[in-house]
């Protein structure tokens, strides 16, 4: 065993002088252990290995970063002018410092960090959106499978889906007599339409081939639903789910502004009533980031789940 080590050590020594072979001999030098060679080589090769990664990351991060700085600069300039109605970033930073740096503080029953408020809003969205997924996929399947269900329900749904989410709020308040279920209902009614419509399109587009396979195998309705329908329509369903989550995040803020209680929407309304403009700006940033994250998560989920289906 000694001879190969000696040999490799020898080869290491030679190119270490010439920088050209530096990259190739890293593994060998680490195998040899603490020898003279080690001093210079690892740093170099580490840099050459990390550079492409850094480049890729930088090309993604630097442009938006530059744009954000530019926007902040313009904003700062406009907001600092005498007579400006909105606060500049520097003022927001000092005024809303506690909100920005600690999302999860609890200073009192109504004085909590924005992280908590967002979580409360997310919980409402989760319930409303979850119901919308369940019922949307079921109704979408029905409309996609049955010609008569489509003829009967499709015109009604096409009309209902154009109604603004907030227009449903008085009706749901009257029906539920409580703000919590009303807000959830508004989320549900906002998210359900794109899920229904996209699911039904997906079901209608199941290739006849798959139906024939199911027929030859004599799959029953339940098996057909889980083994053929859902996987086959998955790309369409996920399009609906992704649109749905975006819409429900749009709707929750508006609904909470009207129903009150806790949540990020109510926080904005409350801040407006007590003229804390800086807090509102911070809340908007939170809403944007969460909405962006929700959309990404759904997109990621879709690519994972529909990996096999999409490519045929």
């Amino acid at each position, binding site marked *: 065993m000694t001879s190969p080590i000696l040999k490799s050590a020898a080869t290491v020594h030679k190119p270490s002088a010439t920088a050209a072979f530096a990259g190739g001999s890293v593994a060998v030098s680490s195998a040899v252990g603490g020898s003279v060679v080690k001093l210079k080589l690892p740093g170099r090769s580490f840099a050459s290995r990390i550079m492409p990664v850094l480049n890729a990351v930088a090309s993604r991060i630097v442009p938006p970063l530059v744009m954000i700085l530019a926007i902040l600069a313009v904003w700062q300039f406009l907001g600092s002018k005498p007579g400006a109605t909105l606060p500049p970033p520097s003022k927001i930073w000092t005024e809303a410092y506690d909100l920005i740096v600690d999302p999860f503080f609890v200073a009192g029953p109504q004085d909590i960090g924005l992280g908590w408020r967002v979580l409360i809003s997310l919980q409402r969205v989760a319930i409303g959106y979850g119901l919308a997924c369940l019922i949307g996929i079921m109704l979408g399947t029905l409309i996609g499978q049955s010609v008569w269900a489509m003829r009967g329900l499709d015109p009604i749904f096409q009309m209902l889906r154009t109604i603004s989410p907030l227009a449903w709020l008085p009706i749901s308040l009257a029906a539920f007599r409580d703000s919590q279920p009303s807000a959830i209902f508004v989320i549900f009614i906002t998210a359900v339409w794109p899920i229904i419509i996209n699911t039904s399109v997906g079901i209608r587009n199941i*290739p006849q081939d798959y139906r024939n396979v199911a027929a*030859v*195998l*004599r799959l029953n309705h339940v098996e057909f639903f889980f083994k053929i329908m859902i996987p086959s329509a998955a790309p369409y369903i996920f399009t609906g789910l992704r649109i749905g989550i975006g819409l429900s995040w749009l709707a929750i803020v508006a609904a909470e502004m009207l129903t009150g209680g806790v949540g990020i929407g109510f926080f904005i309304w409350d801040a407006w009533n007590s003229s804390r403009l800086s807090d509102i700006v911070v809340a908007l940033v939170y809403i944007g980031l969460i909405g962006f994250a929700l959309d990404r998560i759904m997109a990621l989920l879709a690519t994972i789940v529909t990996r096999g289906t999409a*490519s*045929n």
Partner: protein
Amino acid sequence: MSPYLKIDHLSKTFTRGSQNSEVLSDITLSIEKGEFVSIIGHSGCGKSTLLNIVAGLVSSTTGGVLLENREVNEPGPDRAVVFQNHSLLPWLTVYDNVRLAVDKVSSSVKTRTERHDWTMHNLNLVQMSHAKDKRPAEISGGMKQRVGIARALAMEPKVLLLDEPFGALDALTRAHLQDSVMAIHERIGNTVMMITHDVDEAVLLSDRIVMMTNGPCATIGEVLEVPLPRPRVRLALAADPTYLKRRHRVLEFLYERHRFVEAAA
């Protein structure tokens, strides 16, 4: 003795609005157990419709199909179909595509391990066990068709229905698969009904060739016996007088007596 599969005075009329078009007219055909029968005809002659009726995917207007003296009018695994475009489920692996059929057809009679073994046995039969964990999108057209055949065979059908199974493949792959189908037929002696528009394929594989006249109102024009001994070897047959004579007969039927007329369709 009554035949194994009997197509009895079958006709099919498609109705679209007030228009009736008779596609198949008075088709009677008997297929014995273990027989390999090809149905050949120009495109549009209704041969795929005939296969779909036997499969139960389409219902006949008059007449019917009897399998072992029992009428069949709905699809079932006893008449497994290999579809022209393979029809594998793209979200399942090769193994799972076959396993789905095995699980559905024989879950009551086979244990879990037996079902696994049977799935692998059929994948081995079409020489596809090496790609069992791949998805259909990752394998070639010929491989997909092999898996389609494995899935159909795994249902242990009384009749195997092949709907232009090699139509979408290139010539070399097609020849390869034809040899495989011959070898499988040799080995398990199943009853096969195949739709094709390839003359060589029909003569090489079949015991009998059913030649269809042109549509509309297509019917059986002629039935040709192919008395070539099995196993058949493609290369040896290329110069075989019986083979050439049969081939000529089919060509004559298709291109002289029932030439495909575009305008008539």
